[in-house]
């Protein structure tokens, strides 16, 4: 076993282990923290594959953004110090089954899929290339989805401001 394999298995076990802990922890704040470790593990796998940009974006978006948001909403809404009540057995069984089937389904497709090597020359995943691809208007460019996503984010932002705005008392 080479060093690379060892590193991969450490990352994989860390990611899956903390994901399992995230759904089995009995305090909601702990679940959020385990989710954080799972997401960092995925970023680690990206680093392992030399996709530094995607790894850094994973950390910025998920760890710096989403997990912080989750923790804040837990603090503001939940009784975060108390143990969560145990879900009933039926619910546990059905969620376990659905998770199992989803896992098997994905595994089946990965096993069945024959991965064909692309004929195009490979592109280095540098920031410059990703940026060019993202904003190019030619074939295989991603300008349209990029703009659609930015419109969506803008709409979400305006919506938040409208909800949060204080209406002035009528004079």
């Amino acid at each position: 076993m080479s060093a690379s394999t060892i590193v991969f298995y450490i990352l994989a076990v860390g990611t899956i282990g903390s994901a399992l802990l995230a759904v089995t922890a009995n305090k909601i704040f702990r679940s959020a923290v385990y989710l954080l470790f799972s997401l960092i593990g995925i970023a680690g796998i990206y680093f392992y594959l030399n996709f530094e940009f995607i790894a850094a974006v994973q950390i910025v978006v998920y760890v710096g953004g989403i997990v912080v948001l989750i923790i804040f909403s837990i603090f503001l809404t939940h009784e975060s110090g108390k143990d969560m009540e145990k879900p009933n057995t039926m619910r546990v069984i059905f969620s376990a089954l659905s998770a199992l089937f989803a896992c098997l389904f994905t595994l089946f497709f990965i096993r069945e899929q024959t991965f064909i090597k692309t004929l195009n020359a490979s592109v280095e995943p540098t920031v410059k290339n990703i940026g060019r691809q993202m904003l190019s208007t030619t074939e295989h460019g991603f300008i349209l989805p990029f703009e659609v996503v930015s419109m969506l984010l803008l709409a979400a932002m305006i919506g938040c401001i409208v909800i949060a705005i204080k209406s002035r008392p009528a004079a």
Partner: protein
Amino acid sequence: MNIPLLYSLSGLARTIHIWLAGLISNEMLLLTTEMVIMGISLIAFLVLLCFFLGYMERRVAAFMEIRLGPNRVGPKGTLQIVADTVKLLLKEGLTPDLSDKFLFNLAPLIVVITSMLVIAPIAFAKDFQLWDINIGVLYVSSVSSIAVIGILMAGWASNNKYSLLGAMRSGAQIVSYELSVGLSLISIVILSGSLSLSDIVYSQSNGWWIFKGHIPIIISFVIFVVASTAEINRAPFDMAEADQELTGGFNTEYAGMKFAMFLLSEYINLFVVSAIAATIFLGGWMPFHIGGWESFNHIMDYIPSFFWFMGKTFFIIFIIMWFRWTFPRLRVDQLLSLEWKYLLPISMVNTILITVMAIMGWHF
């Protein structure tokens, strides 16, 4: 581009590498040994640095308030900080009974580890950095965003309402000020056209960005220093640990070495922030040159690049320490309105200005 001939630590690193490669033939073992050596020397460097910064903070504070400062333990009080460390080591590492023990003990580690990880892409001297990653700036801003979770964890796990309040304040503060820090980092990325910290340093070989970039860069430098002072929770933005009202904020329940970890990470963050500012605005290890003054420039080249880097970094550290004794602490609403109503709009307009400047080629 003429890169000046500078004395650098990279020669030393190469010598050690060649010497080790002669001793160890196994490639993997060699790599691991070098990593261990780098890790140990980095930690030793950081701990010594924190000793020095602790001493410097007291001396600067004393200087600003026209008093003497530490002067009893050791010559000029230099051993005071060693005495304090021994005291912290001997204290009991208390864990409160009703706290979440696992997270309570994990939080200081996360805070320290993230601040140490950010050191990796910083160039300490010419061609002397741990990891020349091609997304350096993005790496720095992404990894430093993990620290906030350590703080929230500490506040929640302590099971104490002052800690939780402090952690919430601190979280809100760090998340908001990250935006301004990011935008002022982006302004330099636009001009230099690269995210890698070593490329950014090399792009300044004909002049530091703060001189080349006219007024917009000076504005973004000021915004960077202000916003990162807030991001590392230092006065005047130390609402999170305001001793007088929150009895210490998120670290109220911590004692002994666990408390020392937070202190350590605070000083490492201070160093990191100043080092980043020195790297991207003040030319990193590049010596100070004046166009046309050949002999002057030549003399400047004789100063080793490590000293240039450290000198600039400590200049910014001094400024941030100066802030502490100059401005009164902000209220929480003032703190948020400073970011969202002033710094963020200014830095957005500034980014557009700098983009125009970069497209038109108005900078030197």
